[in-house]
């Protein structure tokens, strides 16, 4: 009797619960309810102006030469969350390296022609191993332009080893160059800029920076010149780095061109942010730089999500390299995406994407 009664009340309870649960879950997950309940997407478009044309030259996209040596340094130090200034990076005895040094670096040289004909000369990042970077700066004429103070400013995409630790390769030739860094730079980064050395990480700066440093934040689109803007992202990144910024150029008759360092914010997230924040951002013509997908030739099914969704954005040229990874490039090509081929020179390993010394011209 008692059994029956409680079973009946249980059934009743379950029925009510199931119904309520069903409506709650079905309702919440259906698009009808979502449209009714979720706020409408807000666009907050900034008109950044236009430029006439753009030349983007890869100075170095080879950040390290032996993946296993790099990853063993990371593993020994305690994994991907350890502070990059605390890791003893291997700099000697690496067969595949540059003069035995495993480290290379990332830097891109950009010339943007404004509508009035003036050409802005920009350095994006400054690499890691300063011997290698000085060599590349000299080979590509960047050193000379730095020394003549022809390069207007340097942008640091983010504080990572391979983009920033080679700062003295730049300051050696022009210690006064104005530098833009993203919000999230650590005190160590500012100290390195000023000449402090970090023996544990095998990094130093013999040429302290004396110019202006501007910290850009994510509150707004930072328009530097008509048609040239930077967007900053408050993202926590591996090896205890925080924040990354990347370029948005608006090229007349072509559309938006995005130029990135590592793109830790994610390329689709970046394109979405551009669409929501920049006038004309729904038409992205080209993307250039590191896309941080499989930098260690590692993988995650989520990266396939990215490749499968990429074609929706109608990008016509994908000038990727660096931390994009070879697996990603192969998968992108297989998916029919317009990856721009390189020439595999100056220690870039493959011609599957833009390598050291390769140039993407948009005009």
């Amino acid at each position, binding site marked *: 009797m*008692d*059994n029956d009664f*409680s*079973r009946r*009340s*249980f059934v009743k*309870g*379950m029925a009510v*619960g*199931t119904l309520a*649960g069903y409506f*709650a*879950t079905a309702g*919440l*997950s259906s698009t009808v309810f*979502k449209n009714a*309940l*979720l*706020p409408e*997407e807000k666009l907050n478009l900034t008109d950044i102006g236009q430029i006439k044309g753009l030349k983007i030259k890869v100075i170095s996209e080879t950040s390290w030469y032996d*993946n*296993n040596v790099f*990853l*063993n340094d*990371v*593993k020994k*130090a*305690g*994994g*991907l*969350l*350890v*502070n990059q200034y605390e890791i003893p990076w291997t700099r000697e005895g690496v067969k595949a390296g540059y003069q035995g040094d495993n480290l290379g670096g990332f830097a891109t040289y950009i010339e943007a022609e404004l509508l009035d004909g003036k050409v802005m000369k920009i350095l994006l990042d400054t690499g890691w191993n300063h011997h290698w970077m000085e060599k590349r700066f000299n080979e590509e004429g960047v050193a000379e332009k730095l020394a003549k103070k022809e390069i207007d400013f340097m942008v640091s995409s983010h504080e990572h080893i391979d983009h920033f630790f080679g700062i003295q390769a730049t300051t050696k030739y022009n210690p006064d160059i104005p530098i833009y860094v993203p919000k999230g730079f650590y005190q160590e980064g500012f100290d390195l800029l000023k000449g402090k050395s970090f023996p544990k990480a095998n990094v130093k700066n013999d040429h302290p920076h004396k110019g202006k440093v501007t910290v850009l934040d994510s509150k707004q689109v930072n328009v530097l010149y008509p048609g040239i803007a930077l967007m900053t992202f408050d*993202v*926590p*990144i*591996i090896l*205890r780095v*925080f924040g990354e910024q990347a370029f948005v150029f608006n090229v007349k008759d072509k559309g938006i061109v995005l130029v990135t360092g590592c793109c830790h*914010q*994610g390329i*689709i*997230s970046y394109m*979405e942010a551009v669409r929501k924040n920049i006038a004309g951002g729904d038409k992205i013509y080209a993307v250039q730089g590191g896309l941080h997908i499989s930098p*260690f030739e*590692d*993988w*995650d*099914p*989520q990266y*396939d*999500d*990215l*490749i*499968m*969704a*990429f074609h*929706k954005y109608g990008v016509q040229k994908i000038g990727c390299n660096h931390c994009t990874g070879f*697996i990603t490039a192969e*998968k992108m090509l297989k998916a029919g995406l317009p990856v721009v081929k390189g020439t595999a020179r100056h220690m870039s390993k493959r011609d599957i994407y833009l390598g050291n010394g390769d140039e993407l011209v948009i005009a």
Partner: protein
Amino acid sequence: MIEKALDTLWLEERKAAALIKQPMRGILGIILAFAFFMGLWWVFMDPRGILRWYTPQYGYMYIRWLLIVAIWQAYIFNFWPFRPNWMEKTHPLKKGLILVTMNFAITGLLIWVFYYGIFGTFAVPYFSWFELRKTGLSDFFAREYSSLAILMMAAIASWLSPIWPSAFENYPWHKLTQPAKGFTVFAVTFLLTTYIYFIFMHPHYRVLFYPWQEFTAAFPWWYESFHTLSGNFNVGWIMCATVSVWLMETIFERYPFCLVKSQPWRGIAGFFCILLLAFILFFTFVFLQDAVWGPSVEGAKRLMAPDWRYLHTGELAVILLAIALALYFYFDNWPRRFSTEVNILVRVAVTIIGAFALHWLYYQYSHMLLGTQSGYSHPQQFPMAPVILFINVMLYHNWFMDGWPGKRIKQE
């Protein structure tokens, strides 16, 4: 007497006397548990600490299995080979030391002998760090990938293992004595875990390796409906289910399925109650995220990524669970003076408010304590790791040590 005690859950039989009044007892208990957690985190996990296993997957894997081994020890094996007599007479500190050491040792054996040594070596290579390394993968990612697979199986085990003792009361093996009962329930739940793993997680590995492993694993069948190939979709809702089991077991006092008196109906009802609560949690958390950050975008990373959003439902659920367990263990499952329904409603309200508070505290301050980074979404950071480790410590403290020094078993 001993036979009877072996037959029922010792945790339910034990009678612990309060030595300190509330709320001081609860507060002291939480402080002690938190201090012990911080010690463990510093020694084993912290990226600034000693062993630095939070690489992240490697340490995360251990944390998840420590939880399941604790469930095995207390719920499935009912502390066998220790006798209830021993459990009652031994000083909580000594008991804690022995049982936690056992917990660590079994976890180590499970990973190094079962996963690396047997399952990974003779069946599925991605379960073994060393087998993966032999394929030419870097040592670091060989360890990360194998850890991820082992911890994905842990997610399922943490959902299924406690269901048998809790909802089914070990039916139809309830009449067996230990260790036969323990081994039977362990074998059944572990077998189920393995089957379910291959349906919900193995397809993740078709896509993880390059080229896609078309002959060995199914295409992630959830892709069309949930817009990601990642197994994080399943990790998310299965963690909601794990949390549901323990919400049912603690603040819900197995209500409403306890109203069904006979097995296996009670167990079946319990299973569906748990699943229902899990789906409510899962879809509510997905909806809340959509409301705060806007709908997710296919192929995006971090905050906007569908797979991260699903994973985050699990993270939110685990935060909820931490509060519910603290209420249950440290504040005597307050309140108890109203009808069961009202008690549960009040506890649910308290838990939700507490979870909001913990959520805020976590995302405001945890990075300084844990040596991690601030921000909601970091592709290599898993808030479930520290929160589950804290939960483990609460279990050690309350299951293995009777909540001492706030409480102590009555000596008869």
